């Protein structure tokens, strides 16, 4: 037993050690932050009470939206061909939400009272709703992922039980996701005096929801290519292509909403103001919406693993810009105030994200994560035996 563990540790790829080192360093800084308070360890101030951490929370939750999107596609719309993508995506969501929960505790002034959201409810507060939904949804994700653990350790009866309640779990999970993806946007509805009008709209919850669907799909698509490099296991190419087919529709809907909202509010003029905000807004739309919309409209690009990854990165970059705009860049500046994260804020963020990637990598190594996916090496062997596929004659 110990010999085997020792051997596993010796044969671990060097990347794992880098991730572990970053995680340990980040978590040490995190402990120091809990001990020393926010003034010593962060550049947050009364002018910028939120910073890097909240921006990343919003971004990570957005791309973790792949888990509920895919669950809806596979279990509600019953497109079972996408089933092989479910396990890796649920795990992405799980480590994503886990990292968000850790960072949220870092951000609280009274982190020792984190449980107060459960005993002192304010139903008008978006943050109250977000806290509850994220907690409950993390439990749903753990349940959705539990069959993988049960399979590994041979707990068949528990695994079967969890599989039997999959459908209700998915319905509750998708509903909770809809609620908190949108209510993360609702956080900003009350900030009408603070957020730049290009981003401010009472419909921001709907926009957050739609962009989380796009970011979630992009994460699955891009993740398939990365997983091919890292784990030598990946989703079949036609599945990635079919998932990519959804993107232009989602992005198109998002684009119409973004422009339509400006039109309805009579704020189109702000687009040509040619200042920092108009440039940022146009960059967000061009990089994250229009460019991938065009790219994923081409079947050849959807089928190319590298191009699909490129397109997916564009979508994620767009959502990244959007989430950081509403928490940082597009907030009304206050005289003489400037914010840039401190090295401690960055170290903690990098540490927690490294921890998330590390957990994902280890689970991918030891648990049956990739059932039904393509084993790249096995597929290469099969390709040598079988004749090359003939082009369709029509």
């Amino acid at each position, binding site marked *: 037993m110990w010999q085997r563990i020792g051997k596993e540790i010796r044969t671990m790829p060097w990347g794992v050690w880098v991730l572990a080192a970053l995680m340990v360093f980040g978590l040490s800084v995190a402990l120091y932050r809990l001990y020393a308070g926010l003034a010593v360890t962060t550049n947050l101030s009364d002018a910028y009470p939120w910073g890097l951490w909240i921006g990343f929370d919003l971004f990570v939750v957005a791309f973790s939206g792949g888990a509920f999107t895919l669950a809806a596609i596979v279990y509600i719309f019953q497109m079972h061909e996408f089933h092989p993508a479910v396990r890796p995506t649920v795990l992405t969501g799980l480590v994503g939400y886990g990292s968000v929960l850790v960072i949220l505790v870092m951000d609280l002034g*009274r982190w020792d009272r984190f449980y107060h959201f459960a005993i002192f409810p304010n139903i*008008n507060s978006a943050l109250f709703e977000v806290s509850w939904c994220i907690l409950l949804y993390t439990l749903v994700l753990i349940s959705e992922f539990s069959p993988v653990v049960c399979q590994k350790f041979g707990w068949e009866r528990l695994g079967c039980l969890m599989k039997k309640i999959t459908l209700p779990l998915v319905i509750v999970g998708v*509903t909770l996701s809809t609620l908190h993806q949108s*209510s993360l946007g609702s956080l900003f509805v*009350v900030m009408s005096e603070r957020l730049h009008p290009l981003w401010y709209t009472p419909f921001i919850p709907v926009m957050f929801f739609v962009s989380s669907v796009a970011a979630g799909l992009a994460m699955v698509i891009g993740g398939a290519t990365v997983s091919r490099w890292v784990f030598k296991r990946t989703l079949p190419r036609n599945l990635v292509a079919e998932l990519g087919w959804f993107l232009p529709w989602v992005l198109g809907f998002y684009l119409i909403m973004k422009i339509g909202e400006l039109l309805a509010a009579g704020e189109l003029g702000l687009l040509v103001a040619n200042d920092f905000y108009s440039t940022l807004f146009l960059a967000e739309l061009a990089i994250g919406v229009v460019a991938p919309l065009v790219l994923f409209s081409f079947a050849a690009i959807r089928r190319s693993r590298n191009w699909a990854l490129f397109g997916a990165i564009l979508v994620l970059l767009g959502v990244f810009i959007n989430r950081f705009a509403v928490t940082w860049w597009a907030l009304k500046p206050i005289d003489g105030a400037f914010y840039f994260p401190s090295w401690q804020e960055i170290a903690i963020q990098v540490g927690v994200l490294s921890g998330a990637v590390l957990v994902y990598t280890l689970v991918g190594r030891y648990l049956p994560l990739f059932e039904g996916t393509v084993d790249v090496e096995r597929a*290469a062997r099969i390709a040598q035996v079988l004749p090359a596929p003939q082009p369709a004659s029509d």
Partner: protein
Amino acid sequence: MTSHAILIDLTQCVGCHFCEAACQANKGLPADTQLVTLRFNEFTGEDGAFDQGMGRKQCMHCVKPACASACTVGALRKTADGPVVYDAARCIGCRYCMYACPFQVPTFQWDRTLGLINKCDMCADRIAAGEQPACAAACPTGAILFGERDALLEEARQRIVKAPDRYVHYIYGEREAGGTSVLYLSDTPFAELGFPEVGYESPAHANEEVMHATPTVAAGMMLALTGIYWTVKRRNELMHRHPVEFEVEEAEHVAENR
């Protein structure tokens, strides 16, 4: 119970900072923490001449406070008495109120290990005991009036009518963010004194409209998901799917899609 308010006539303010000192003493605040701040402003007036005036910042005690609407744990609350009070024992230090406040009033105890929010509560304990807030009691010129909100609004209007040349014809706080329980009169345009321009609707309204849609969205989503599930399932059953020979097909499929 009457809804109390404070009216500050800035034309009578001499900038002695007694209100700040009285507030700090009454609340026992550390030297670097103030719940009310006077700020001396110098600027160029409309006629191009040099001008100056006293600005002031403290919690506006909104009639419909956005901070109370936003607070995760309900630590902020508008009382029938007038003040917006803060329950430090509930606060988790999430700082959402600081973003929600249209006047950017709440500040945070950054240098504490376990930080909380700083905010004026109009001396709610003194009001309950039948006294004036500490700042109003300390003002030597009577620039800070404490009373009932409607009566103070009437007083403010009377002052403008009686001395129309002395005042800007505007009561700051009458309608800002849906109306506030701290009101200002001035002889200088408010924007020059650092008072933010704020819309006339409380941000709490839009927030609560959106948040109250939550149960509808949740119920609708669950119904829709269940409905879609049954519809798709039924359609698939009607299509009588037959199992097909997968063996070779799958191998080809795998080779092609690597």
